[in-house]
């Protein structure tokens, strides 16, 4: 099925995605397992007992709203409605911020649309004191943990309410009080830091675990290898999450890893437990996380979880995905939408209905709108950000060093 743009007259093999702009994407070859999900072993099983899980797919929610299989978690309708709300809220916020970026209010924004179930399901299954080392697409964790949306928005607007004082680009949040590690603009680097954090936790005999994230594209960085390797050697209490949303800016997942194996399978050879989960199925994400968290907390070491999902939007506001993939690919992607799937289930079990759903979406929109308004009142990048320029000299070191003090003085003299 793969075809090659340009002529490839040599034996050098370069992978290509199945569809490009102009093609009619057909994903019927991707088998969506209906009923057979791999069994749920004991969380303290031998790592190799999860080898089959690395190449199959853990699913709980069927498209018709039923739940199924070994992994179906016992969760209350309240918890599921909470999940639904967190997903809807994350999506509403993303929507709004994207639009506001287009209006020049901030330099940049990144949506997580289509993959919100990963962060929300994951966060629901952790304890709030567990430290997550997120990428820029886990805003759902902050929403779930009750971080102030206004602070998040102010960060994106780089205004006087920005807890980071304008130092970082939008979306690179830091919320220690919510167990949310400062996001680095450098891909991959936090993976091994999270493992170190978990080692410290073990050293201190604490129960807290770490949960680290990477996109599938960034698994190619050395830090991913370091993380798997150190986690294996020191049996660090952590979860290593690969969010496989099929795309890394314009590169399909076959560039990141070749076409031979899943991302979860990477962990097998390191002696780690490995799970591969339908990332659009919030209950499956929840169940897999619970399993891995229990394993880590009880001394079983690290688990690598691949969350199989799809990046519905562009990579960021700077990206136009129609340049490299068919425009309707997000719609024909065979795993559905995480919000819709959870909604269908809740309706199926009689705990939700269309009216309440519409009201929920409205409510989220309203909250986001009001919050945004109050955030923007504190400034935005196209107007007056109200960030004090002198803050740029702060937090380079704990205490300013003499040469920085001197430069600050120069700055003060030269600006007027």
């Amino acid at each position: 099925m793969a075809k090659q743009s340009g002529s490839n007259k040599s034996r050098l093999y370069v992978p290509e995605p199945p569809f490009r702009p102009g093609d009619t994407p057909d994903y019927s070859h991707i088998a969506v397992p209906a009923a057979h999900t791999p069994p749920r072993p004991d969380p303290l099983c031998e790592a190799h007992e999860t080898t089959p899980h690395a190449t199959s797919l853990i699913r709980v929610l069927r498209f018709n709203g039923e739940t199924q299989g070994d992994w179906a978690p016992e969760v209350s309708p309240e918890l599921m409605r909470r999940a639904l709300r967190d997903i809807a809220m994350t999506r509403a916020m993303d929507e709004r911020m994207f639009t506001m970026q287009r209006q020049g209010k901030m330099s940049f924004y990144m949506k997580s649309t289509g993959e919100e179930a990963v962060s929300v399901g994951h966060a629901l299954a952790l304890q709030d004191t567990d430290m997550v080392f997120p990428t820029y697409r886990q805003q759902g964790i902050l929403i779930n943990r009750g971080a102030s949306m206004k602070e998040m928005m102010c960060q994106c607007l780089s205004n006087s309410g920005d807890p980071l004082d304008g130092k970082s680009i939008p979306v690179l949040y830091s919320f220690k009080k919510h167990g949310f590690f400062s996001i680095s603009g450098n891909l991959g680097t936090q993976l091994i830091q999270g493992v170190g954090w978990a080692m410290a936790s073990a050293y201190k005999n604490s129960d807290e675990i770490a949960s680290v994230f990477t996109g599938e594209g960034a698994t190619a960085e050395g830090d991913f290898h370091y993380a798997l390797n150190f986690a294996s050697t020191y049996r660090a209490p952590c979860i290593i999450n690969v969010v496989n949303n099929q795309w890394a800016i314009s590169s399909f997942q076959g560039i990141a890893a070749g076409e031979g194996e899943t991302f979860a399978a990477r962990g097998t050879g390191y002696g780690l437990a490995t799970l591969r989960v339908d990332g659009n199925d919030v209950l499956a994400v929840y169940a897999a996380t619970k399993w891995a968290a229990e394993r880590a907390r009880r001394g079983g070491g690290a688990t690598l979880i691949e969350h199989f999902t799809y990046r519905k939007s562009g990579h960021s506001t700077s990206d136009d995905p129609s340049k490299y993939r068919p425009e309707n690919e997000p719609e024909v992607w065979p795993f559905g939408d995480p919000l819709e799937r959870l909604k269908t289930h809740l309706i199926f079990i009689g705990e939700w209905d269309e009216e309440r759903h519409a009201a929920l979406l409205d409510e989220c929109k309203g909250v986001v709108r009001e919050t945004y308004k109050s955030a923007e009142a504190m400034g935005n990048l196209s107007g007056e950000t109200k960030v004090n320029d002198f803050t740029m000299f702060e937090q380079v070191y704990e205490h300013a060093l003499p040469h920085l003090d001197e430069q600050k003085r120069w700055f003060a003299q030269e600006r007027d």
Partner: protein
Amino acid sequence: MPQMNMIEAIRDALDVKMSQDSDVLVFGEDVGYFGGVFRATAGLQETHGLHRCFDTPISEGGIVGIAIGMAANGLRPVAEIQFADYIYPAYDQIASEAARLRYRSNGDFTAPITIRTPVGGGIYGGTTHSQSPEALFTHIAGLKTIIPSNPYDAKGMLIDAIEDNDPVLFLEPKRLYNGPFYGDPHAPAKTWRGHELGEVPSGHYTVPIGEARRLSKGEDVTILAYGTMVWVAQKVAEDMGLNADILDLRSLLPLDIDAIEKSVKKTGRCVILHEATRTSGFGAELSAQVQERCFYSLEAPIQRVTGWDTPYPHAQEWAYFPGPKRVGNALRKVMEG
């Protein structure tokens, strides 16, 4: 003469070399089908084939690593690092390997690779899309580090880099891709259209590595600049009505020290500009060399105008950028000194 912006000039250089020499391969993150996040490789895959212009995994160390191996096997790889801020995972492959392969094997193996990467601020990129790490590379024996400031030079220098038998780091001031930037973010953006350095000959030509370009001739003061700061220098000197000798260094290692020495001996005054962090920036080396060679001609202390010793902040971008005001102050100071 074709008019090109800097991206087009870079793309044209790649196209010329790929057409001439089947040993030239181009690769990096998003450079294949998509043509690069700054579009510098747009169309090259279609023209030259999937196997000659392709995407790589997100692994800067791996990208430079395969480039070295390919080069050792006779090819001329041109690798893109998406932002210079992401070059550090490749630092070991560049500094320990590409730069030292010829030396440690006494010429038995070589690594004629070119690494292209965008540098500098001015696009609200914050700490991780704005850095100017040139000084971290000029300290590495065995490597060449160059940085054009305009489309004409960009094409000619890139072709020269690809043809060079040593590894070359080719830095692209991203704020100049679409036009010269004179330091005022609020002024209407200029394009390269109509600029004489936006006139780029088609086909093959080179701008030799190692030669500085004189922007303007003057007797009052020497300004040493490269990348984005070249245009800031020009504008400020003009606005001040200074008779300045402005050198666009273009090549940092090797450095055109003769041109620098001649100029400073004539003017007796020198201001050095760069966007990078001040301490141990390349300006330090320039200042040291000028001082060593022109001590008895200097009439005032050499001034450096640089980025602050902090990471490149996001919202405070223009407070960080060594803009016209600071350049002007330094010029006034050196003229009074």
